[in-house]
């Protein structure tokens, strides 16, 4: 049986405009010797990297090399997949997010995630956009909520398209 090469994440750093201040600043996200397993399959091998605050970082690589798996370790979205295991450390603001007693909901509130595929909830368009604001009780009044929803839809260049059917299902 031919041994197929399993694609792996490897960390290479190349910063375009590396500033001196950026280097001295403590990393916002710091990953140490991270291994991740789906059952017996190891998906991530000894990942260590630092991400500074306000830094944009991109992961590129072939399909199945663990890009999404790695991203999902940063807000513990992998917790919801049964039979997975993680070891190593992920520090965000110097707190180990895998330490016992971590509030996972609070973590996900702070570490946002945009998925590859959009997945509208079975609610109205308005309620979909308002979902994050509502569950985190960010807005204080319903008028503020609708302002924020309108702002979000305008920023996404969708407002004129959907403004007359905000109350209809987002799925149709």
């Amino acid at each position, binding site marked *: 049986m031919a041994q197929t090469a399993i694609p792996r994440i490897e960390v290479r750093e190349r910063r375009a405009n590396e500033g001196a201040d950026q280097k001295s600043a403590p990393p916002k996200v710091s990953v140490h010797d991270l291994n991740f397993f789906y059952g017996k399959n190891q998906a991530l091998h000894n990942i260590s990297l630092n991400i500074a605050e306000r830094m944009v970082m991109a992961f590129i690589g072939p399909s199945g090399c663990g890009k999404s798996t790695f991203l999902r370790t940063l807000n513990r*979205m992998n917790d919801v997949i049964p039979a997975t295991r993680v070891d190593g450390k992920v520090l965000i603001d110097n707190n180990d997010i895998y330490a016992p007693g971590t509030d996972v909901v609070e973590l996900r509130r702070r570490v946002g995630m945009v*998925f590859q595929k959009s*997945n509208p909830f*079975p609610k109205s368009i308005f309620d979909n956009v308002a979902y994050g604001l509502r*569950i*985190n009780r960010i807005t204080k009044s319903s008028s503020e909520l609708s302002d924020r929803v309108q702002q979000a839809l305008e920023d996404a260049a969708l407002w004129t398209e959907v403004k007359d059917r905000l109350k209809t299902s987002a799925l149709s």
Partner: protein
Amino acid sequence: MMAVARVDQMRKSISAVMTTGTAVCTFAAVGILLVILSHIALKGVGSLNFRFLVDAPKPVGEGGGIGNAVLGSVVLLGLSSAIGLPLGIAVGIYLSEVGHGRLAGGVRFIVDTLTGIPSIVTGVFVYAIVVLPTKHFSAFAGGVALALIMVPIVSRTTEEMLKLVPHSLREGALALGAPQWRVVLGVVVPAAASGIATGAILAVARVSGETAPLLFTAFGSRFFSTDLNQPIASLTVQIYNYAISPYDEWHAQAWAATLVLMTLILGINIVVRILTRRRF
């Protein structure tokens, strides 16, 4: 060439035999159903009129109707739905969304086993835990018995429907910082709502035909009653009592009551069809 032609001919004749066979079986199955339905309709329609549907039973020879049984069945179905549906849906949510590992596996096994318990056993069980302590038959006991039959049906359909909800939907909500209860109640359950409703209505249709568990619990009654603490009539028990009676008039009424019950169940199934069709 010859060999190929023979193989082809063989294949075609087997295909013809099989097609005929399946067609005959289909007609046999559907035909039996049609015979049952038409027989009930023919036998039942003679005694069916408005007074029959609203009157209370009367002594033999004086007519009377099944109004109390229709009312009783509605009360029993309402009560059992009020107990059984929330319980069953909650168990289904637990099995699909909350429970993992051995405890959930155990619960699932118990639910499956419950589905297979003969309904008369459920009736005897409720007799032991409700009727004996309270020392009398009651509509409440009947409702509990029917609810116990509904729970496993509703919980398994609920579980199946929730499992059809794409995982990405849960993750999308979780990634926004939603706690699990909000994900389940606000996103996952609404996404499966029409399927859950279908399962619930099918469970109601299923128990509306149950007789055995009611014999030991709701018992039956010849009077109009909505008192949950008293015995109550139901269509199925009324049919049973009339069918085993020695009177031709009551036999005719049993046929008519059967027609009413069949129409009721048919109606419920049609509602289910309409609900499921709306999904797409």
